[in-house]
């Protein structure tokens, strides 16, 4: 075997289809130790399917998945793994503490209970029945169940759905701490800010294919659009005539605040100053991951439509 020791999970040329519809096509991903890898993509892109194949719940049409050098779904892999899946309900009449204590018993060396409480922020409500929990609290309990075995590999499928911003931030903190302790984390999310903040690498999925792969910075840098924002007493038409500007918009109709998009902010600024257009409160910002995502997805859907 020539798997490098730091690779925790390797996915090789994996294909999967349901009813003749290709859901995963030729996926290759490596997940390294102490790495957070985010899988981003629109609904139906194949994110959850990929997680299910890695958990051994779905068979593969072709290709190979290996976790710690073993096949997915085997007991020895499960004992190194924690998973947070999209679960709509938990058994109502058990308390948070009972749920966690039970899941801890499945592992030989579980995480200390107080530590689980600290990561999940559930200490105050540990004796509440799961029936009484809010959506966000249920998510935190599911997170607690995923980490309570001190897994080396953690799957988080849309972990922050339904969480308020405080809960989301404390979960991010938990993920970063676990990563620092050596846990490898595979995350799927809709929240681009989440992927941007947490990930070492991002894999973007669309129609079951990997469309982009890289660090958040690499993906953002593939989009060289910059945004120029300012206020101005001038009419919007004064800016539409600028040659280096690709898009002009008035941010809010009641104010005189404008946003220009430009492939080269320096040239646009030069143009504005040469024409002596009055601009105040000037800011120039790089593309957010969200913009990159939108642009890449648009490129992909136009290119797949033209095929």
């Amino acid at each position, binding site marked *: *075997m020539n*798997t490098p*020791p730091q690779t925790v999970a390797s996915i090789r040329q994996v294909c999967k289809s*349901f009813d003749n519809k290709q859901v995963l096509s030729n996926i290759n991903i490596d997940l390294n130790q102490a790495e957070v890898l985010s899988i981003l993509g629109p609904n139906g892109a194949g994110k959850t399917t990929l997680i299910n194949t890695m*958990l*051994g*719940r*779905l*068979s593969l049409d072709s290709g190979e998945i290996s976790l*710690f*050098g*073993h096949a997915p*779904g085997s*007991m*020895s*892999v*499960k*004992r*190194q*793994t*924690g*998973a947070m*899946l*999209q*679960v*709509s*309900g*938990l*058994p*109502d*009449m*058990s308390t948070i503490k*009972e*749920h966690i*204590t*039970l*899941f801890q*018993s*499945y*592992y*030989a*060396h579980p995480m200390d209970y107080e530590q689980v409480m600290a990561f999940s922020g559930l200490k105050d409500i540990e004796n509440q*029945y799961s029936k009484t929990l809010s959506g966000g609290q249920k998510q935190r309990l*599911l997170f607690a*169940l995923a980490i309570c*075995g001190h897994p080396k590999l953690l799957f988080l499928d849309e972990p922050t759905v339904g969480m308020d911003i405080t809960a989301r931030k404390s979960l991010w903190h938990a993920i970063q701490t676990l990563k620092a302790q050596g846990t490898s984390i595979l995350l799927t999310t809709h929240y681009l800010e989440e992927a941007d903040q947490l990930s070492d690498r991002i894999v973007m999925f669309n129609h079951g294919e990997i469309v982009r792969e890289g660090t958040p910075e690499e993906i953002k840098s593939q989009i060289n659009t910059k945004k120029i924002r300012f206020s101005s007493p001038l009419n919007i038409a004064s800016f539409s005539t600028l040659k280096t500007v690709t898009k002009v918009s008035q941010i809010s109709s009641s104010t005189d605040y404008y946003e220009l998009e430009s492939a080269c902010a320096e040239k646009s600024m030069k143009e504005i100053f040469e024409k002596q257009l009055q601009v105040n409160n000037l800011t120039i910002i790089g593309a957010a991951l969200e913009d990159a995502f939108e642009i890449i997805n648009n490129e992909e859907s136009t290119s797949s439509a033209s095929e």
Partner: protein
Amino acid sequence: MKTIIDDKPNLLNIFILEAKTETMRLFRTPGFSIPTLLFPIMFYTFFGIVFSMNPTTMPTYLMITYAVFGVIGPALFSFGVGIAIERGQGWFDLKEVSPMPASAYIVSRISLTFIFASLIILFLFTIGATFGDVRLMRWQWISLALIFVLGSLPFCAIGMTLGLYLKANSAPATVNLIYLPMSFLSGLWLPINVLPEVMQQFANLLPPYHLAQLALKITNMDLGFPIALHLSVLAAYSLLFIFLAVKAYHKKDKQ
């Protein structure tokens, strides 16, 4: 390269915690515990004691058949409805991908069935002895209790299969639609020999009928067929449904 040191958790500890959690949960769920405990007790008090057709034999006969009715209930519902609902929620999937041994899930529900079955038997025996004047030898009480508790096992297998195949929202109704008619047609509510001949023939296909006949042998109230027949029908049902359950559990790509 296989890097795993195969550290195993304590299996007995898992079994105990799983069974404890599951039992506590169901005792706290009135929708499960009240009908499961109350129905056999209520029916027996009503038909076996208060409106008994024959005060010398009926209290004993119906104590036995309502005990069969009573122990089938928790087996079918804790497995059948329980698993179907957990599957619907995605909770079952989470358990499946966790390192919980599948045996723990089954053992916990069997223990739970045994606990509920024992309570039902205890209540029925007490009511029978106190108000129905049921008089049996000690070995008869003990044999009956053992037959009832162990007799719930084939119904655990049936329940497990139902739970793995049924949809969450239709499971309670479907299980009731199997449980109640099957109990009546097996002669658990009224003695089998008061049912029409055709129905008595049909009862041969039903596992509760065979369990009731086995138990009735203890008090010489059965129809007189060989023990081996009843045991083999119950064993055949168990094997069939265990096979179906294992098949459903190991099926991949279930959606």
